[in-house]
């Protein structure tokens, strides 16, 4: 079917893949794990060589099933679909033309209940209770939702900022208010303060140009040094009174970018680190400048050592002088380096901020940096720490794991307009970077990039995703534009592993066009993907050796009333047999207990489920006791105790 040249190209693509961690390591791990031999991704990767087409492109799926693919209504065809928010049975899909309200109660047949035409780029959407927030940043958005645009540089008709709709009757949204901002709103994040029931807060990130003061009073694009009121180097905090949303207003413009002098690069690879350790063992002085380690030559170090020895009245330096120098060296280097003027002052804005109020932290993806932000005082967020990465072009978004111990940042290399997943593009560029969070500091662990190469005609970029509530694991679904959808497990932050995917061929095999998945989010049991030009895709996870049906069922047991990806809610799993069995499956996968004991636990669970009331409760309590007693002798005591705890909660919940 394919010409020989294509076959050769595929072979090359695979070589690139297998040469890069984590693919190689995960395949090994998968092969050595129990269960069917289907754990490894299919070879050759079916995402390679997919047929081009708008509504008839070739598709490849692995461990996922497409439940429905619904084209946009004709009014929205040819526009750009953007982000998603969810409330009840509805998915709200932003678009450069407005927003669309989909009823997804039957995921195999979603119905478009409302298309609301109100153009603005990019129409990032969020919901909270009866309110819908929509972002606008471009020059053509209008206060009256008109489609004619705004041609003048300065115009009272222009809208750039946050639109507020009352969606009490979701089929008839009422446009109740606006908050205009100097840079518009590229994205926004809704912050629910657990201690404030009357208001909700919206953090606005605006990366577009500052508008003239003649259009919006007070806007200035001069640097803060020249104008204290500069719209650069700040985010906006909007307070929205829930009862009077029309009174929403900016209450603070926190300057979370100032004095960015912390060591910026996470930088060093394990190879660099071991090289430095070796050098230190050999007595070589090493300093780090930026992300680069520098080995100090004797002609630099010796005079310093001599002067320390002299100051102590010794003729020649001793080991004590040497360790004294090691302590003072960073200050000496800082002084020398400090003589150079830094020509610039760090990022002026965030692209996106993910707020996780349950742990009091926000993850800011801010141009060249990733931030951790303290959000316990909603009006006064404070930057805690910042990391940079020479492999990252543009920090785009952040996702915390459920515990708040790991954070994943994505790199929007190419801005979503470029084909940045070609076989020739390095795996560290345009990837996700995974960090662990310890004592409010971030430590780099690994990169994850879509493992399958895409054609030069497919705009491909690490984009929006969300956690899937698989208990005991960190699993996330992520959109990659025309790279499709990738489900990754980053439970071990140093070894992220792809466990499922969905992909289509390009829209046009002759040129790069905007298309693919803008956002792919888990919501109450399904994965919903906003297809930039093809509409709405809904998918479900299929069980595999990498993910059991019990784990999927446990994930489906977590129900949310609403969902915004940039406002993370902590998942809480209600006690259930699926949850207990999911943990048993993980115990088995980790060889945590002998296989005959695993089988016995499963039999006990089945027996308990077959009875009810007090008998069930008693059976579960007995199993709990046995598991707790066994834990001490088990190969993996922690996992056995997790199963015991889950069974106990199930017993306690049994009436």
């Amino acid at each position: 079917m394919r010409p020989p040249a294509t076959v050769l190209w595929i072979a090359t693509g695979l070589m690139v893949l297998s040469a890069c961690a984590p693919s190689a390591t995960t395949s090994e791990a998968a092969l050595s794990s129990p269960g069917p031999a289907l754990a490894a991704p299919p070879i050759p990767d079916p995402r390679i060589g997919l047929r081009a087409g708008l509504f008839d492109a070739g598709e490849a799926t692995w461990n996922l099933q497409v439940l429905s693919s619904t084209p946009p209504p004709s009014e929205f065809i040819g526009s750009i679909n953007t982000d998603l928010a969810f409330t009840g049975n509805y998915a709200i899909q932003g678009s450069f033309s407005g927003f669309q309200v989909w009823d997804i109660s039957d995921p195999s047949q979603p119905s478009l209940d409302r298309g609301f035409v109100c153009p603005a780029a990019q129409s990032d959407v969020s919901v909270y209770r009866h309110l819908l927030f929509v972002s606008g940043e471009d020059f053509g958005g209008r206060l009256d939702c008109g489609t004619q645009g705004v041609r003048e540089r300065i115009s009272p008709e222009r809208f750039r900022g946050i639109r507020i709709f009352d969606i009490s009757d979701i089929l008839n949204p009422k446009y109740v208010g606006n908050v205009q901002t100097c840079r518009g709103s590229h994205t926004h994040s809704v912050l629910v303060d657990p201690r404030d029931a009357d208001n909700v807060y919206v953090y606005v990130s605006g990366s577009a140009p500052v508008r003239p003061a003649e259009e919006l009073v007070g806007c200035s694009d001069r640097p803060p040094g020249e104008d204290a009121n500069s719209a650069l180097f700040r985010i906006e905090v909007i307070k929205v009174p829930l009862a009077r949303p029309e009174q929403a207003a900016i209450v603070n413009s926190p300057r979370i970018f100032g004095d960015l002098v912390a060591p910026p690069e996470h930088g060093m690879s394990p190879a660099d680190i071991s090289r430095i350790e070796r050098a230190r063992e050999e007595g070589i002085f090493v300093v780090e400048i930026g992300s680069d380690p520098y080995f100090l030559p004797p002609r630099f170090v010796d005079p310093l050592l001599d002067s320390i020895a002299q100051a102590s009245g010794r003729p020649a330096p001793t080991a004590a002088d040497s360790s004294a120098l090691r302590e003072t060296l960073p200050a000496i280097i800082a002084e020398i380096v400090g003589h150079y003027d830094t020509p610039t002052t760090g990022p002026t804005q965030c692209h996106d901020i993910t707020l996780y109020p349950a742990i009091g932290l926000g993850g800011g993806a801010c141009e060249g940096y990733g931030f951790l932000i303290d959000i316990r005082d909603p009006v006064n967020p404070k930057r805690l720490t910042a990391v940079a990465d020479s492999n990252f072009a543009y920090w785009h978004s952040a996702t915390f794991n459920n515990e708040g111990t790991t954070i994943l940042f994505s790199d929007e290399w190419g801005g979503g307009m470029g084909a940045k997943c070609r076989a020739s593009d390095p795996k560290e560029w345009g990837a996700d970077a995974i960090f662990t969070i310890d004592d409010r500091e971030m430590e780099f662990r690994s990169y994850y990039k879509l493992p399958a190469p895409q054609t030069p005609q497919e705009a491909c970029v690490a984009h929006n995703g969300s956690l899937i509530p698989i208990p005991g694991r960190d699993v996330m679904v992520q959109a990659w534009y025309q790279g499709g959808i990738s489900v990754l497990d980053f439970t071990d932050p140093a070894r992220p592993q792809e466990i499922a995917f969905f992909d289509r061929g390009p829209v046009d095999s002759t040129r790069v066009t905007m298309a693919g998945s803008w956002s792919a989010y888990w919501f109450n049991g399904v994965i919903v993907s906003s297809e930039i030009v093809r509409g709405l895709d809904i998918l479900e996870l299929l069980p595999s050796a990498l993910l059991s049906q019990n784990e999927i069922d446990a994930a489906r047991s977590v129900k949310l009333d609403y969902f915004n990806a940039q406002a993370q809610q902590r998942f809480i799993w209600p006690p259930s047999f699926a949850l207990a069995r999911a943990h048993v499956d993980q115990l088995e996968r980790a060889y945590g207990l002998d296989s005959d004991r695993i089988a016995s636990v499963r039999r006990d669970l089945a027996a308990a489920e077959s009875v009810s009331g007090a008998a069930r409760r008693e059976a579960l309590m007995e199993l709990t006791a046995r598991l707790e007693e066994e834990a001490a002798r088990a190969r993996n005591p922690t996992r056995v105790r997790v199963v015991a705890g889950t069974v106990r909660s199930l017993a306690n919940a049994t009436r």
Partner: protein
Amino acid sequence: MRPRTRLATGALQALAIAACGGTTPPPNSSSTAELEAIYWARTDSTRMRFTETDVQFVTGMIGHHAQALVMGALAPTHGASSSVQILAARIINSQQDEINRMQQWLSERGEPVPEVMIKGTELMVHGTEYTLHMPGMLTPEQMRELDEAQGKEFDNVFLRYMIQHHRGAVTMVEELFGQEIATQDEGVFKLASYIQADQLTEIVRMGRMLTALSDLPLSGAR
């Protein structure tokens, strides 16, 4: 998408009528084939909403980006540090892709497409009436200085001139956005916004790298 100029075609005018602010659309009864036809028609007509300013910006930016390719190509042969070589490789990857995209943008609109020719440090951009006198462009003297530098000196000159060059691109974007008639082409708005964000981010990174290049008698570890 929205019709914003008088260049709107019939298909777009039809859209404007159907798409009055806030009306409920009729139930989606169109077949996939009809929707696909609408998609291609709108994609084609959307392309025709541009101004002379957009064309000038895109044409100019091709030449501007091309000089960054010339600069970046020197890094491997001029003893640049590995971090500067990686930076140069990224700049080449990004700006070459953007040049291709800008050429595609012009060709789809029937505008002359500048062809970039690079020979050593000489840059020729054929097929355009626009000049290469743009903000941030290196003068021939500056280019010679860069070409004559080696090792750490090259890093230093490269970073300083690439910051100058990137700042020029940001200035070009600011000039585009400062026009009395606002940019109407979505592609140009997105591209220009991205160039601004990407190059400002890279300027910050290069500033950090420049700061790290002290006059210490250091040997780089990698």
